[in-house]
C-alpha cells in the first residue's frame, strides 16, 4: 500500500528543520549527556531527509553547510566534516533518485548507512588514529539509534518532508 502525500511547502520544511535543530541542541544534551553514542544525530537526520528529497546540487550545498557547522563545533581536522557531509549529501540525493524505493525499511537502512559513511569519511580524512574500532564500537549503536529515530520521524512527519512510503 502506498501512502500518498502532498508535496511539502517551504514553511513546513523549515519548521521541521527548526524542530530537529532544537532536538539536536536542546533535547539531546539534556537526555543523553556524555553518552553520545546512544544519542540520535538529529542534525544529520534533518540534512539527510532534506537531501533525499532534493537534487544532488541542493543536497551537496546542504551537506556543505552542515559540514561547516560540524567542523566549527569539532575542529579536530577542519575540512573533514565538510568533505564528509558534502559527499553524503550528494550521494543521498543522487542515490535516492537512482536506486531507492519509497520503502520504510530501505529509508531506515539509508539513514543508518548515511551516518556510517559520514563517520568513515570523517575518520579517514582526519587521520591519526584507528578507523575500524570507532566505526564498530561507537558507530554501530549510533547508526542504529539514528536510523530508528529517523524512521519514527518519517512516520510522524512524512508530509512535512514530502516522503511517500510503501508500507
Amino acid at each position: 500500500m502506498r501512502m500518498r502525500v502532498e508535496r511539502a511547502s517551504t514553511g513546513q520544511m523549515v519548521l521541521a528543520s527548526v524542530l530537529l535543530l532544537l532536538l539536536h541542541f536542546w533535547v539531546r544534551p539534556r537526555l543523553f549527556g556524555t553518552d553520545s553514542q546512544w544519542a540520535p544525530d538529529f542534525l544529520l537526520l534533518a540534512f539527510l531527509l532534506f537531501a533525499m528529497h532534493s537534487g544532488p546540487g541542493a543536497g551537496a550545498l546542504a551537506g556543505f553547510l552542515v559540514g561547516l557547522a560540524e567542523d566549527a563545533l569539532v575542529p579536530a581536522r577542519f575540512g573533514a566534516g565538510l568533505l564528509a557531509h558534502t559527499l553524503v549529501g550528494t550521494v543521498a540525493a543522487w542515490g535516492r533518485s537512482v536506486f531507492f524505493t519509497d520503502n520504510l525499511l530501505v529509508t531506515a537502512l539509508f539513514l543508518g548507512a548515511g551516518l556510517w559513511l559520514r563517520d568513515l569519511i570523517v575518520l579517514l580524512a582526519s587521520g591519526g588514529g584507528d578507523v575500524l574500532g570507532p566505526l564498530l564500537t561507537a558507530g554501530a549503536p549510533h547508526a542504529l539509534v539514528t536510523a530508528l529515530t529517523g524512521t519514527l520521524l518519517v512516520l510522524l512527519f512524512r508530509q512535512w518532508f514530502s516522503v511517500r512510503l510503501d508500507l
Partner: protein
Amino acid sequence: MPIGVDRPEARRDAWLPLVCIGLAVAALFLPARIGYDVAAALRAWSPLRALIWLQEQAVLGRTSAGRFAVVTAQRDSAILAARRADQLDSENRRLRLLLGLGDRLATPFVTAEVLRQELPTDGRTLLVSAGGERGVRIFQPALAPEGMVGMVRTIAPGSAVVMTWAHPEFRASAVTEDGRLFGIVAASGGRDGTLPEMVFRTASYRDTIPQGALILTSGLGGVFPSGVPVGRVAGLAREQKTWERVYRLVPTANLGTVDHLLLLQRDSAAVPAAIADSAFRRRQEEQVREEDDEP
C-alpha cells in the same frame, strides 16, 4: 543528448556538487591554524553561537538536576580533605620560610561545561562553554577533577576548543611520581576502543616503571603546572631500537565521561609553583654571587 540536461536545475545539479566537493577538499588542506581560526569565527559570528548557547543551557539544566547527588558527595569529601589541608598548608608555609622560599602561588581557574558533539572525532577536541570574555586564553591547561585533559587551542566569544591528549598533535612533558624518570605523554593509535591510547615515552632504557605507577605532569614546557595526574602505567607498549621504552597509560581523566573542566589561568600572577620557586632560587643565588664578587 539526454532529455532535461539543458534545464537550469539539471545544470546546477551537475556543477554545484563539484564546486562544494572542491571547496571541501581545499579546506582539508588549509594550514591547521587557519582552520582553527575559521572555526572560531563561525562559532562567534554565525547562528551557531545561539545554538551553542542553547546547548550550554541544556547541559547546565541536566547538570543541576542529574548530578546534584554526586556533587554533594564530592563536596562532603572536599570538606573533609580541606580540614586536613589547613594544617598542612600552615606547616608547608613554615617549612618554605625556613628554606627561604616565597609563598606558594595560587592558580586561578575558570570552570566550563563540555558540549558534546556527534562527529566521531569529538574527543580529540572538546567544545567548552567558556570563552575569551571569561578570561580563557590559548594554551591554558584544561583539567578534570581526576587529572589532565588537554589545553585550550582556540577561543571565541562564548566558547573555546580544548585540544585533548587524544589529538595526534598533543604532547606534554611528564614525570614518574618519584621524580626519577621524565618523558613525553602523547596519543598513540588505539587498538580496540573509540579513542587512541595514551602512551608515555621515556628515553631511559635501563629503568623500568612498575605497573600501576602514577605519571604526573613535570611542569616543563610552561603549559601545565607540575604535579597534575596524567595516568597510571598499564604495561609496556613497545621498545624502540633498544634505547626507548614506551609505556601504555590508563588516563586518570576519562575523555568519554568528562562533563566539565577547569581551565587554569596562566597570568603572570599564576605562574606554577615549581617555576616560581626556580626563579626565586636563581635570584637568591645571583644575589649571593654578587655579594661574593664585591670587594
